[in-house]
């Protein structure tokens, strides 16, 4: 007994579980989606709701704080721009409401994508201790940001109506645009969260990208009127290039349908016609590519954390 060298599986031979009984369902290990869509939804919703509650019940002024950030940013930019020369060139009706809409949408975009970067790592105790569809983690971040977006749109609406704007049928397009933005952001959230597990410099890189997006998507300066850029003798229409960014295109279209029809549609801002397929294509590719990347990496995430 002191030095047993007998093969360990000998004790099983008498049992042979595989022939005696039929088999149950196989355990395949973790995956992005899991096998039960209902469970995925319950989980995502529960996680999103918890996160939402935390911002609101953390302090008595929860909702106010949530509004403060975009409103303060709006206040500063509005004050400065309305007194600057830039503003005269960018003047369109309801500029204030358009600016606030831009800031609110960008707040959503940065909250959802920025928040998802470390989401898997932050929820390490869940990922390593329990089996659940892994995609619930980044999706819940996007859904929480959607809840905040809904609340943040209220002051934008008030601002628009106070400035003399009126309700239009085209507002009905806004939820559709919000959904498109959410799907594009969800694609990014999947890529970012799963990349951050292996590469920790995703965080600073993404912060820079977000900052660039803030200045380059026409949030406070219309990009439609930018002068062309001359690179090695080739003239490039900068505003068309910037419109290829799905966020910029969605914002442009949202202003057209929500604020005033004098804001050009995304299609005309990018140079008309089929060119609008570029930002749409990028958004779809981000979503699909993000999902495939996440799906491929999901089974190993628990081991890499």
């Amino acid at each position, binding site marked *: *007994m*002191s*030095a*047993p*060298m007998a*093969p*360990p*599986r000998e*004790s*099983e031979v008498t*049992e042979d*579980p*595989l022939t005696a*009984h*039929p*088999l*149950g*369902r*196989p*355990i*395949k*290990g*973790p995956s992005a989606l899991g096998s039960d869509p*209902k*469970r995925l939804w*319950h*989980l995502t*919703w*529960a*996680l999103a709701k*918890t996160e939402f*509650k*935390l911002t609101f*019940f*953390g302090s008595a002024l929860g909702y106010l704080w949530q509004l403060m950030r975009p409103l303060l940013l709006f206040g500063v930019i509005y004050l400065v721009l309305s007194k600057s020369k830039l503003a005269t060139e960018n003047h369109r009706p309801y500029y204030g409401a358009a600016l606030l809409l831009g800031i609110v949408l960008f707040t959503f975009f940065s909250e959802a994508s920025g928040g998802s970067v470390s989401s898997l790592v932050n*929820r390490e*105790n*869940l*990922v*390593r*201790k*329990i*089996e*659940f569809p892994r995609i619930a983690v980044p999706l819940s971040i996007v859904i929480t940001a959607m809840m905040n977006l809904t609340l943040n749109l209220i002051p934008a609406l008030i601002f628009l109506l106070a400035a003399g704007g009126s309700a239009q049928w085209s507002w009905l397009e806004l939820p559709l645009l919000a959904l498109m933005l959410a799907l594009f952001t969800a694609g990014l959230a999947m890529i970012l969260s799963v*990349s951050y597990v*292996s*590469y*920790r*410099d*995703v965080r600073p*890189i993404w912060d820079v990208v977000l900052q660039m997006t803030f200045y380059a998507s026409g949030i406070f300066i219309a990009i439609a009127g930018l002068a062309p850029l001359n690179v090695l003798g080739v003239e490039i229409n900068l505003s068309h290039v910037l419109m290829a960014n799905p966020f910029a295109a969605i914002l442009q279209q949202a202003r057209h349908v929500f604020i005033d029809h004098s804001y050009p549609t995304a299609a005309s801002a990018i140079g008309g016609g089929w060119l609008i397929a570029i930002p749409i294509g990028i958004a779809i590719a981000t979503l699909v590519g993000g999902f495939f990347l996440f799906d491929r990496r999901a*089974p*190993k995430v*628990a*081991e890499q954390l």
Partner: protein
Amino acid sequence: MSEPDPEPVVVDGVHKRFEIPREQVSTLKEKALHPFRRSPTDVLHALRGVSFSVPSGEFFGIVGRNGSGKSTLLKCLAGIYRVDAGQIYVNGRMSTFIELGVGFNPDLPARDNAMLNATMLGLSPREARRRFDSVIEFAELGDFVDLKIKNYSSGMLVRLAFSVMIHVDAEILLIDEVLAVGDAAFQQKCYEEFERIRRGGSTVLFVTHDMSAVQRFCDRALLLEHGRVVELGDPEHVGNRYLELNFSLQAREAELLAAQAEDERLAAEGTTISTPRLASSGAPVEALAGAEPGAPKRDGSGEAEILELWFENEQGARAELLPTGQRCAVAVRLRFNREVRDPLFGINLHNSHRDHLLSASNLWSEPHSGVFAAGEEIVFRVSFENVLAPDRYHATPAVATQGGAWIDRRERMDSIVVTGTHGSDALLELPFDVRIERRARSGTAAELTL
């Protein structure tokens, strides 16, 4: 039904390995600078062809030392890790309890946490709501439902988490040593709940170090070492084997060899191998096995030198393990560097709690041991009836002058493990008889004579 139901859990030849890169590339920058450099990886085989099945309603224990792969096995069963080879089949609703209160958020009240936790464990929101009152009742937290759990005592937290866990009503429960928490009264409650679960016909897989819990609850147990099944069956038998692995270097080495043989077989399939010399906690296996930090102390004039110490069993052969209840001996070999007259030889034994249990010397029996010449080598031997309780014992041999000055003393020079089948918490296993005598009805019903 002519066709029998599938077994709740069937594990068939499961392999799991972890690839640990020697240099961790953790930034995109490095990846971009060296896109094609693949850093060499160490492969750690956590599970090597594990197979077993658990019939319905069985309470099945999984035991093993640190780093033996038992938690990895549980995580594979739970679907947290993907297995590299082999299959796991499960029949029935399964819940995993690797940690109590997964996803608890300190800033939320008990209500929200219980709901979230229950959803994580697999209940639908409606089911969770319906069971909420019963969860709170079991946890005895009725007055604190709306208190943020950061203000809970640790005992209250554990009660809440455990209560959610048992209300999930899983048919198969995977439990990883969650019971090592809470006060004695709560543990008792947990154990009672375990009994209830057991009677209720759920199948339970229970990972633990605690052999007494295994012997108390488990119908069968599985012993893992280096990711291989070493023993499967009767908990008593598995328990003894576990003790042996814990305390016998020889038995561990045998298992290591067997594991390496398995690795070589796998290496033929083209993977680099490193044997899991490191336990999951990162501490070397040897360190976990009882050796203590710090070099042993040594005193003395050096007129004689203690060279070697060993233990002998009943047959007089050198032993690594001594069964309790048999005669045994401690022997010490030493060499004199100068002529010494009438030295005293002694040995002290201490258990793992440093209780002093034996102090043997020739001081009273034979103080005039004689004259020993320079260069002379002797062996002195202390033999005794082994009534020591199962534990690890350290021996401190010493040679001293008649006046009491150390010539050589080597503190905790070596150690031995005493094994026994029934631990009693007593320091010694003194031989005893128990007799029960029935008396006439008028007096006391029975009398116990020790």
